[in-house]
């Protein structure tokens, strides 16, 4: 029942596991700079998977665009706007100075 499993399949499952874990951590993180760094790690996992799938044009395009430009673009947006994401509405109103006590 256990035939020969190639190294190729094992490496591909490893990179896809990295991608799932990093995507979930991007979703639940409230400090936006940390979330952007997690999404950069996920883009690196996708680049490794694309090398294994024999697509060299896509690797060149994706390394420049996915790892470099998306991270820099979101960091520029965060530096021109705010940095923190509030989960519930009371915390957001409290941070703006509105009196919420009930």
């Amino acid at each position: 029942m256990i035939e020969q499993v190639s190294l190729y399949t094992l490496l591909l499952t490893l990179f896809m596991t990295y991608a799932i874990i990093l995507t979930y951590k991007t979703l639940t993180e409230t400090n936006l700079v940390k979330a952007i760094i997690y999404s950069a790690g996920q883009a690196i996992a996708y680049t490794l998977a694309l090398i294994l799938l024999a697509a060299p044009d896509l690797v060149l395009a994706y390394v420049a665009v996915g790892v470099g430009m998306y991270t820099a673009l979101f960091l520029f947006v965060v530096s021109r706007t705010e940095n923190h994401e509030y989960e519930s509405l009371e915390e957001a109103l409290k941070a703006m100075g509105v009196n919420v006590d009930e």
Partner: protein
Amino acid sequence: MINEILWSYIYASVIAIIAITVYGMASRPHITKKLIMLSILSDTACLMAVLIGIHSGTIKPPVFPGISFTNHPQVGTAELDVFSYEAVDPIPQVLVVTAIVIGLAVLLFLSYIAILLYQKYGTLDVRLIELKREWDSV
């Protein structure tokens, strides 16, 4: 048996990432978090298109090897038979190059709009913008 389990896991993980990002776009209240999830969603769709194009066995990229500016022998049907038996499908890769460019263009435009929204309302939380518009129209 183990081979089939691993390949099912690979396809299921791509679909799981699509599910996580669609849920994240709908439920997170901050606009920058929605933009990050949108970028991950477009990249995952491109990866899934490339996954459909491969075949089992030896995989080679779809480039005929050994050609340069001055060294270009006349290639006939015999060598092309071996080449077309091993190379991967080139058509999904062409469509994905176009998709990456268009995804980058859409995200650039949306982030400029996000910066202008912050100047107008002072916040990027969707619920607070809704409250401000209600209070201003009263």
